[in-house]
């Protein structure tokens, strides 16, 4: 059902009054089709919300606009209240100041020199540094372990002490630092951003108490800090086990590992938890950081056997197949284009590589450059359609857009022609002919082509609207003729060119129509 019929069927007018609310805001859509709908709107309780140009709520905008404009001359001369300064932020705003102060500094190089002297004279005691690596790392006080991975290390300002002695922490704080805080107090202090050593907590019980305490206060910052400490001081297996019964902490660790890119540990953890789908997705995510197409393809190949959900597994497989395909097409086409032998590439040089483009884009590309190829080639549209089980509708839409862009009207024609077993041809469009017309029109198809498809639009009102919009006179005339609508025909006669074939056609129809038949027999469906 989805495959056929009018795709763009307008909203069902009678279904429920509630659906009509949109009218008020989107009056412009009233210009669309369907007289019967319009009548509905007008007769419904929503009447107040329709806009004709005159009682359009918002046409009042014009009025206020006019008023505003007429006032300009009075006030614009010395309007110092509102300065239209297109070149700057409001004076005094922070972002304005960023620019302002930054530019003044670059304009005054002297200021910098004097600053150098001033700066160094005010800090005579400070050593000149050429690289912070050299100096600060000397003072960094690497601990016994030979690294500064410990959190408490991170929390103690060893570096600062070395060249800012006046900022040393007070004695009292040192006392705090060394004294024996319980897990509870420690968490409390960490919450307030105070320095705490976690190294003292040696036993598993103490460490877990610490963690539970942090979780109880819901402070993600502290939870994460403690997790880093646990991660460093506990065996992986024990940590995982303990976290399994501590879901909040567990989620924080997963988030943290994602954030810091510790992919391996993350995957270990997810595997331990038996969260296999997450493992798969998390691993699949990595392909995004691989730029080289060949390497990316290899990586995706490896992803195929990961434990995805069954639906996702299909998509990942398709993703791999598509990239594999694109690599082949890309190599081939780049060569063709460079050789300059192929007319299509000469006439329409490629704007970008096809690598990593979505499937539908690839199909468009293939319909554009490789339309006539047989199903046997990787780059042929039919092959893509089959490999990826692209639905008919999607395929027709894409092929139509590509062929219309090339103005290959024969191909367009063939796309909608079907032969039945008796050999009769019939036109059929799974996307509805209205859509066909729109796409053709967007690709500036000539009237002769356009009207052929307008004629195929089943709904009379839609057909008439399209025909008038795109000046397919023949279709309009024929439709009115079929409706035996003498009135409309006469009205339309004024719209066509004097002495044109269309005028003659109308005249001849009018003379053939029996007078009695002139009232419209068309009833709306």
């Amino acid at each position, binding site marked *: 059902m989805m495959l056929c019929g009018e795709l763009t069927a307008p*909203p069902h007018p009678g279904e429920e009054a509630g*659906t009509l609310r949109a009218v008020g805001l989107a009056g412009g859509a009233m210009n669309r089709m369907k007289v019967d709908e319009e009548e509905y709107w007008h007769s419904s309780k929503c009447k107040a919300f329709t806009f004709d140009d005159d009682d359009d709520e918002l046409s009042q905008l014009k009025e206020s606009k006019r008023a505003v404009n007429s006032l300009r001359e009075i006030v614009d001369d010395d309007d110092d209240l509102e300065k239209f300064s297109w070149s700057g932020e409001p*004076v005094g705003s*922070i972002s304005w100041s960023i620019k302002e102060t930054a530019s003044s500094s670059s304009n005054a190089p002297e200021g910098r020199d004097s600053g150098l002297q001033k700066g160094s004279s*005010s800090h005579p005691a400070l050593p000149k540094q050429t690289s912070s690596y050299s100096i600060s790392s000397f003072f960094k006080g690497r601990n016994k372990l030979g690294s500064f991975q410990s959190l408490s290390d991170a929390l103690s300002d060893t570096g600062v002490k070395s060249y800012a002695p006046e900022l040393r922490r007070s004695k009292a704080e040192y006392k705090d630092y060394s004294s024996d805080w319980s897990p509870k107090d420690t968490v409390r202090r960490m919450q307030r*951003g105070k320095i705490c050593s976690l190294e003292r907590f040696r036993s598993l019980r103490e460490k877990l108490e610490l963690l539970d305490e942090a979780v109880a206060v819901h402070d993600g*910052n502290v939870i994460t800090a403690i997790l880093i400490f646990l991660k460093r001081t506990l065996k992986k297996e024990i940590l995982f086990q303990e976290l399994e019964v501590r879901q909040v902490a567990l*989620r924080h660790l997963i*988030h943290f590992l994602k954030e810091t890119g510790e992919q391996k540990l993350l995957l270990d953890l997810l595997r331990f938890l038996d969260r296999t789908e997450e493992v798969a997705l998390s691993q699949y995510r990595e392909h995004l950081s691989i730029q080289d197409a060949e390497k990316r393809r290899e990586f995706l190949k490896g992803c195929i056997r990961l434990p995805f959900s069954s639906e996702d597994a299909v*998509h990942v497989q398709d993703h791999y197949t598509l990239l594999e395909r694109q690599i082949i097409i890309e190599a081939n086409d780049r060569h063709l284009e460079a050789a300059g032998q192929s007319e299509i590439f000469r006439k329409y040089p490629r704007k970008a590589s096809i690598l990593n483009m979505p499937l539908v884009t690839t199909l468009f590309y293939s319909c554009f450059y490789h339309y006539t190829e047989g199903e046997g080639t990787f780059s042929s549209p039919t092959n893509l359609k089959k490999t990826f089980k692209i639905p008919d509708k999607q395929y027709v839409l894409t092929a139509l857009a590509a062929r219309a862009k090339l103005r290959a009207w024969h191909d367009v024609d063939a796309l909608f022609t079907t032969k039945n077993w008796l050999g009769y041809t019939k036109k059929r469009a799974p996307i509805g002919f209205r859509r066909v017309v729109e796409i053709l029109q967007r690709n500036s198809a000539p009237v002769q082509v356009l009207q052929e498809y307008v004629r195929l639009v089943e709904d009379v009102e839609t057909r008439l609207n399209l025909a008038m919009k795109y000046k397919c006179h023949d279709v309009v005339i024929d439709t009115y003729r079929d409706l035996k609508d003498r009135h409309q025909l006469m009205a339309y006669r004024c719209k066509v060119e004097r002495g044109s074939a269309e005028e003659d056609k109308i005249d001849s129809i009018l003379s053939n129509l029996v007078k009695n038949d002139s009232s419209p027999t068309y009833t709306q469906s």
Partner: protein
Amino acid sequence: MESENLAESRDRGCHVIGRAWRGMAAHLSSGRVNLTALREAGRRELREFLDKCAGSKAIVWDEYLTGPFGLIAQYSLLKEHEVEKMFTLKAGRLPPADVKNIIFFVRPRLELMDIIAENVLSEDRVRSPLRDFHILFVPRRSLLCEQRLKDQGVLGSFIHREQYSLDLIPFDGDLLSMESESAFKECYLENDQTSLYHAAKGLMTLQALYGTIPQIFGKGDCARHVANMMIRMKREFPGGQNSIFPIFDTLLLLDRNVDLLSPLATQLTYEGLIDEIYGIQNTYVKLPPEKFAPKKQGEGGKDLPTEPKKLQLNSAEELYAEIRDKNFNAVGSVLSKKAKIISAAFEERHHAKTVGEIKQFVSQLPHMQAARSSLANHTSIAELIKDITTSEDFFDNLTVEQEFMSGIDTDKVNNYTEDCIAQKHPLIKILRLVCLQSVCNSGLKQKVLDHYKREILQTYGYEHILTLNNLEKAGLLKLQTSSRNNYPTIRKTMRLWMDDVNEQNPNDISYVYSGYAPLSVRLAQLLARPGWRSIEEVLKMLPGPHFEERQQLPTGLQKKRQQGENRVTLVFFLGGVTYAEIAALRFLSQMEDGGTEYVIATTKLINGTNWIKSLMEKLEPPPF
């Protein structure tokens, strides 16, 4: 004279229009609760920190922060405290500045730490005057970030490392936001509750300034957490026995995931539409300049501005305060009425005969000019919006949304959605529609869900598997598990769909979405009258627990309500709130017999687009 307007600008080089000088954040004190006090507290804390770093200073800004900070302080305040230069944080070497202190104002994010480290390290390589480094984390110090600075070998270079708890920022007289853009993702996708902790802290600050809130109601897991933290914090820091007479009567904590529907629907209030179409950032909006070209006589459109026009939107602007919460359909008539009034006022000058009368007229001119330019701006904005709302696609999209919300055809593949995919409309638009359908159907049938997924992946790229997965995890997109679709029951019981909506003179909150009454705001409304007991059954269908807590007040502080005095309720949206929902609450505040006035707080001001975006997997740009 220093302008009080503060602006943020994410892309440097964007330009702005200066605006009328305005009194000091007067709009913050216009509401029932004077939020100037909160802003003052923020300014005080900032001054104290700046004074700690003695001597001249330069501030290096995490650009995201300039917007929120702009609502607290302006450059003049910083200047008074010897801030001489300001830069934007970016990789490489710091610009030269003749100052004693360099202070980094940053959010606690790892990637920013790397940039800071690079700044600090390259600073030492060039021979520049020795400068002291400090770092101010907003809103909190992060041990994780400090660890990263440590790993980069620069932690020791910082003398002061402090935090500035900019938890709740006053946006307007009745509106507070934490502007934490990832709060929803953290809470509902990653289950990281840090932003809830900040919310609780923000609430403690509010209570310190405006008194203990005697009653706390809540719905949802996050709401429960925040209430627990508040109670715990109160217990643990009893030191400051709060002796302030309570201004708020009730706090209502609401999880965003209790109402996933409202942000997905297109907002139809004036402010909501401005946000949907142009995006409001920290009360500022950037608009296409064409309609704002200053038309002076004689230079007809010679040099049209090409930079976006930037405007601040808040209740300090009289006209904006009047129209922002109206349904867009009702804006035109107000603007035209205003135009008449202003025209008449200017006409007065012809009648001014005596010197006294002329003087009188002249004295009113500034006010009239301000009103005139305000009217001009909003007429232009309304025109811009009208161009969009009258487009065929806007109509079609809205029709489908309204069908879903009123329960029509939510269980099959939607033609319009499919069409939009075929035409490669922006992915976010598609996701909004599909999620809306899913929410209105309590999940999609397997066949429907699979169909949408396949179409999306084939058209937009397979890598979006990751985004679809995120949406599923957050509950926005899901498989219908039980055979029962609860949404119709919820819709009927809570009257979420109103057929007879009046956009011009509304009598119900449903006007903000032209038919749909936001569930979140209905919850607030029903809580005030007749109480949640009336909807027990429906509450159970919505995720998470609902609860009530009481905080004891000393007898002296217990409120004796005057006859006819309204209650004040603070509604805190955990995970974000839309302008349409805010408008609906303001509507309830203004109802004559409403009995309750609302102040709104949130983790972030959101709309469907930026909300969905925050849940999308960040994809590398295509490699060409």
